[in-house]
């Protein structure tokens, strides 16, 4: 029995070993390097390798970094909220009302990925710009008197662009969670007197919670660290922590500080994610 188990375990290890190696080299190694860097200091052109918390002290106390961190969190929380709230009805419609060709619908959701992300961000610039599609159309229709300026080169633009980019990633896990709900549970709730609205809040939503939590984490975690979108459509008000990390590693030539900022934001996101996961687990209960 033990021999059998060892053999199975060994086989499993062999199976995942290419992936494991890849992950070790491509993810763990750079991560370790970043962490190591964060305890060193930049001494003009050389790096002082005496371990120190100086970078962390700076990262956590400098008002500029605090502002950027808060703004990053704020933007990603808003983006996540908007994305999940918009994604839920789409996933719901797909799961409950599309009877035929579900695969085609799912395929259509991936259409935005057919062009590069960079191109899509530029397109949003064209849509949201001063003389952009949005403003021109609304001016022509007489709905606005002068071009709206609060939709580009600020926080709003970042939220709009990111919410659009991440929508499919939110739709899919929610869709899967909704698909997993046994339809007889909904009939049972109706049978026991629930109106459709009550049933939604008592059965559908709690059972969809694992998907909602997954969608929240999938959108929240990467958007905190996004730097292309704020760079291109965020103006100065929309800059986020990653832009600062990029500057530290690049122009500012202070990799250790950049590393400390990166590790700090990683820790913050890690804690927030763990919190969301636990709350979601409590709200939705275990679904089997």
């Amino acid at each position, binding site marked *: 029995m033990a021999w059998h188990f060892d053999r199975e375990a060994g086989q499993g290890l062999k199976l995942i070993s290419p992936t494991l190696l890849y992950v070790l080299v491509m993810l763990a190694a750079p991560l370790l390097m970043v962490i190591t860097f964060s305890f060193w200091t930049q001494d003009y052109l050389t790096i002082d390798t005496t371990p120190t918390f100086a970078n962390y002290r700076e990262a956590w106390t400098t008002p500029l970094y605090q502002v950027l961190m808060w703004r990053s969190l704020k933007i990603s929380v808003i983006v996540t909220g908007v994305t999940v709230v918009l994604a839920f009805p789409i996933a719901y419609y797909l799961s409950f009302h599309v009877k035929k060709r579900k695969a085609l619908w799912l395929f259509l959701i991936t259409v935005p990925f057919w062009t590069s992300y960079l191109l899509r961000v530029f397109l949003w610039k064209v849509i949201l710009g001063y003389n952009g599609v949005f403003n021109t159309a609304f001016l022509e229709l007489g709905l606005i008197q002068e071009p709206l300026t609060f939709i580009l080169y600020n926080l709003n633009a970042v939220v709009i662009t990111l919410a659009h980019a991440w929508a499919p990633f939110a739709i899919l896990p929610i869709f899967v969670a909704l698909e997993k709900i046994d339809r007889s549970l909904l009939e*049972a709730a109706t*049978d026991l*007197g629930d109106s459709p609205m009550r049933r939604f809040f008592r059965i559908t939503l709690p059972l969809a919670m694992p998907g909602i939590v997954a969608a929240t984490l999938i959108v929240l975690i990467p958007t905190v660290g996004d730097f292309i979108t704020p760079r291109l459509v965020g103006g100065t008000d929309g800059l986020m922590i990653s832009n600062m990390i990029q500057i530290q590693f690049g122009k500012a030539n202070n990799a250790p500080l950049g590393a400390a900022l990166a590790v700090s934001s990683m820790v913050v996101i890690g804690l927030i994610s763990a919190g969301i996961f636990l709350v979601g687990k409590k709200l939705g209960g275990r679904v089997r």
Partner: protein
Amino acid sequence: MTRKDDMNDSIKPMIEIRDVIKKFGTFTALHGITADIREGEFFSLLGPSGCGKTTLLRAIAGFEPPTSGTVAIAGKDMAGIPANRRPTNMVFQSYAIFPHLNVEENVGYGLKTRKMPKAEIAREVAEVLSLVDMKNYGKRKAHELSGGQRQRVALARALVMRPKVILLDEPLSALDKKLRDQMQMELRSLQRSIGITFILVTHDQEEALIMSDRIAVMFDGQIEQLDTPEGLYRHPVNKRVASFIGVMNFLPARVTALSDTHLTLGIAALGEAQVPRDRLGKDVNPDKIDTIGVRPEMLTVLFDQDERSQNKVKGEVVDTEYYGDMTYYEVRLPGHDKPLTISMRNTAGRSVVAPGSTVSVGWGIESIVVFGE
């Protein structure tokens, strides 16, 4: 269509189903169903899969409104009344226990919808859980329950609503044989003691016979026969019902002579027999008689040449199936290819006859059911 339907006319119907037709696109699932279900009875819808029995149950529950026709419950037409406002509760085939709630929350679910005070809900739930023998499982979740326990919770969840009718959609089909037998008895005695009308959907004829007061046998979206279990077994209206309920031996037969009171049948392998006319079902036209049926227990394998019987024929034992208390014989009679199934009780002093032996088969005219086309 029914024989003994006039027996209990004084009891008012709880459910009146009139000309119910249900179409799904071009497919017609129910072809005009009419039936009365009485207050307090255990009623079964029996038929093979796809016969429309579940559709009819769901039409009563309000999940599949009929395309035409009416369903009235307790004298009230249910047209336009959604499932959540009907005085019915359902036990689903999959039990549909809410996985995120524990047993108590599941059972109290509907009472909470009714905005019953918490203390009262707790009391009602405790009461019904002890009724179904589940009072120690209140805090468990669905995945911590066995199949039989889930079934009890599903039943409790329906019972606690005190509905006029409880609808059961193949509730026992997922249980193993032993548990199923036990649950059949429990369900039956529970229904008797609380007196709520139960409507059971099942494809298991034995289950229907054991549990029901009356059974509607359905084929192809129609009720073929509505009768008591005994009525169905003894007087099936046609070959389809006869072969669906229990085991029936069919033999070709035709009328050779007709008188005012009797008709004489020429039956393959068994020979001639005189049947009183009043033994025929009212749908059977003497000119169209082509088959007779005889149940396995109505035939006798005569172990002793001196044993008496109204009629005797010789045959060869082709095969035996030994069940302990019973033995099923397959006996081929001259003039008929398909062996007849004969069941015999294994009483003291009777040994099982080996295949290949020649035996006499005894039969009586009372045991014959006559079928037309």
